[in-house]
């Protein structure tokens, strides 16, 4: 089976970085709902992750399904590699 190109790991890690900031900010905001600066930062990274998701998916296929990502033809959601196989 074809292995993914090196770029796969790079683009994925870009997304992992931004998503991690969003996870940690989410937990912070759950207990600090009035911190406007943190919310601005959250929305900034939300926009950035949208772009990174699009960039990743256009090259390597959907990250989410049930309609949270577009599908190519043929259906490519269930294609390898899965995250633990990389």
């Amino acid at each position, binding site marked *: 089976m074809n292995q993914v190109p090196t770029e796969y*790991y790079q683009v*994925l*890690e870009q*997304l*992992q970085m931004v*998503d*991690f900031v969003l*996870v*940690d900010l*989410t*937990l*912070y905001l*759950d*207990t*600090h709902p*009035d*911190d406007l600066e943190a919310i601005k930062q959250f929305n900034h990274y939300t926009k950035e992750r949208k772009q990174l998701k699009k960039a990743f998916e256009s090259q390597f296929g*959907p*990250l*989410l*399904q*049930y309609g*949270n990502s577009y599908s190519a033809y043929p259906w490519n*959601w269930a294609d390898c590699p*899965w*995250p*633990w196989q*990389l």
Partner: protein
Amino acid sequence: MWIYEKKLQYPVRVGKCNPALAKYLIEQYGGADGELAAALRYLNQRYTLPNKVIGLLTDIGTEEFAHLEIIATMVYKLTKDATPEQLKEAGLGDHYANHGQGIFYHNASGVPWTAAYIAAKGDPIADLYEDIAAEEKARATYQNLINLSDDPDINDTLRFLREREIIHAQRFREAVELLKEDRDQKKVF
């Protein structure tokens, strides 16, 4: 509902085939203070917690499933191409007899996961104090695992997971403070 995202939370690398290490890591998969117990504990308790901390329990519980997948990935990689002979040498002969190459929810000694590992008292303070304790125990377990491991890649991921326990414990402590406040008064900075 939950939606699966086809990526790990952390870029996991595993340096070498080492089934003996997988045997230890499984403690955080199906052990008392492991990621499965954590996810199920928080996501179950949230139904009877006050509104202002339900979001936090939902989000931490969800993150624990991401950590469960990270542990599974390390176990999978450490054992993927090991022969039955290698598994036997690593002390995984009895695991192999039952599960073959499969991963299972048990602890490092092979004791299957049980709901007795988690609690729900229906009392917000009792439940949150349990959650704080659970995070500290998970942190201690990660320290033990780092002490047992000589794989720098595995330790890198274990350090990430240990740090997450610290953040979760901090947020649960803040949740207790929120519930101690009079009425619904807002926090002023």
